[in-house]
């Protein structure tokens, strides 16, 4: 069952140098219970797509246009503040990149989780506090009573991200959007947090959207991948097929640039050139200036996202 349907989403920001076109016609969908990865480099529009989806980008600075922006039966293009409050944190929860900056420094962790619970469920403070404690136990925090009383600065990044996940789960959301949840953490902690997210997703059956620039994270956590570049979707594929037989030259280049396992002096492969300038995106396919297979058509015309076997899709003139 389709629970998120985004069609032809455009997001732009007014900047004093001009209009930044962060997202240029993104279409994607999410099915109930699946885990979807959104991968792309910085500036590819992957985070902005979902901030726009959650209506967290504010007018007048951001302009959002779409043919469809639907969550279950709610049209998010015409949603009132009340329904929006009911969606955020209740139906769709988000966790963000920097756990240290994600909590209000002036309130305890307990206060902030209780606050979230009470917004969506009328419940006494004592009951909410007990629920918050259970949530902390669920994210494998061993000293929940203490952590409830701590202020954010008293906890490490890994602990805070656990608390953040607990807070995100507090109203049993149907969708969890994780926006680079491990980027700011130590490598050892990263693996634990990813494991925790996958475990919880399996237990609850909620859908997961994992936004990341790290293909390793994709390989470990998601079933299906959307590859984004220059504010466009380049490829959509199940995870295994994407790694085994990438269709789009950009996806291929990304996979090739993963450092090899063998020790030695082989040079790290990179994609030459830089991400497109969102103030003045290149004509045609946004990847053509860096693409080894680009020809005149790629320069002139933006390729459409075409569907291939097994629900795979790619936007490239060179894919046959």
């Amino acid at each position, binding site marked *: 069952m389709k629970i998120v349907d985004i069609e032809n989403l455009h997001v732009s920001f007014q900047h004093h140098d001009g209009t930044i076109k962060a997202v240029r016609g993104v279409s994607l969908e999410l099915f109930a219970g699946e885990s979807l990865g959104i991968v792309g480099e910085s500036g590819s529009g992957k985070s902005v797509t979902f901030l726009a989806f959650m209506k967290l980008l504010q007018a007048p600075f951001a302009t959002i246009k779409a043919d469809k922006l639907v969550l279950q039966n709610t049209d998010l293009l015409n949603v009132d503040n009340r329904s929006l*409050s009911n*969606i*955020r*944190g209740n139906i769709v929860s988000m966790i963000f990149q920097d756990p240290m*900056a994600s909590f209000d420094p002036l309130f305890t962790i307990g206060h902030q989780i209780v*606050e979230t619970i009470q917004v969506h469920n009328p419940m006494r403070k004592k009951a909410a506090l007990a629920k918050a404690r259970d949530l902390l136990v669920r994210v494998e925090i061993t000293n929940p009573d203490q952590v409830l009383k701590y202020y954010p600065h008293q*906890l490490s990044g890994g602990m805070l991200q656990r608390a953040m996940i607990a807070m995100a789960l507090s*109203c049993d959301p149907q969708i969890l959007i994780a926006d680079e949840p491990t980027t700011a953490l130590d490598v050892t902690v990263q693996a634990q947090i990813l494991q925790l997210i996958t475990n919880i997703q399996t237990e609850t059956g909620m859908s997961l959207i994992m936004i990341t620039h790290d293909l390793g994270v994709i390989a470990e956590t998601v079933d299906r991948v959307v590859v984004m570049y220059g504010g466009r979707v380049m490829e959509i594929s199940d995870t295994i097929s994407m790694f085994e037989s990438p269709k789009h030259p950009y996806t291929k280049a990304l996979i090739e640039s993963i450092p090899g396992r063998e020790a030695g002096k082989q040079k790290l492969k990179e994609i030459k050139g830089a991400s497109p300038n969102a103030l003045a995106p290149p004509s045609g396919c946004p990847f053509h200036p860096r693409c080894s297979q680009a020809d005149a058509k790629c320069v002139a015309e933006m390729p459409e996202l075409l569907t291939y076997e097994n629900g795979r899709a790619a936007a490239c003139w060179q894919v046959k």
Partner: protein
Amino acid sequence: MLGYVIRRLLSICATFTIVSILLFIMMHSIPGGPFDATDMPLSEAAKATIMAKYGLDQPLYIQYLKYMWGVLHFDFGVPFQSPGETVLELLGRAWVPSLVLGGGGVLIGTPLGIMLGILAALNRNTWIDYVASGISTLGLTIPVFVTSMLLILVFAVWLDWLPASGWGEPKKWILPIIAYAAIPTATYARYARSAMLDTLNKPFVMVLRAKGLPERKVIFQHVLRNSAIPMVTVFLPMFIGTATGSIFVEAMFRVPGLGAYFVSSIRTRDYPLEMALILMITVMFCFAFFITDIVYAMLNPKIRLGGKVIK
């Protein structure tokens, strides 16, 4: 915490001593003296007698030590320009109008400025922001004697609602209080706006919205509280700056406050009054910063509890 308080109190004593020495040296190094009148000069003998009476014939360090001994016993001497009373009596008398006007100005200007700043930040880049920021820029850039003049012109001369100047009945306080309020209003409007915008751009505000908290709660329970911390730090110093009198406002409205004594004590080499005024301000600023630091620490758990990190 106790150790911190003691350390701060000691450092205030040190500041006080250093300021008093520098002040004493600078004050006496200005050529001329308090009894050097040119239009009706004193005879040499009379001048020598009067200098001896006030101890001005002694070496400077003796004068300083004697002065500080007096200060330790709350004896600040007798002002040369008004020998009928002690310095403390003069300060007690002249400070009341300055405190009423300056205090009134700060107490009105602070909430007004904060409200303007909040409105501006919440309606950033709209006409509300431009009007609020405009008021604040005008308040900071138009000299207070011009504002005072305009107030007198409009409300006393043209509209004839309020008396133009004087001191006594509360009716006469209104215009000078408004004039005094201009600076705190303008300062706070700027501070509040930038503090609010600073907080609004923090990632946790996005998290608060993403978890479904209504905007009203995001602003009033979280953003305002976080923005209050930088705003607290300006309050007491500004209060003291204002409540110790404004030469201009008091002159414009003919208020018998402290302001005029700052000028006259320096001009007439009124050493006891000059020392007392400046030392008083030094001590008040020291304590203002001290109290501000403590309040700041109480508001901010990061400082209150220290940075112990639990893995």
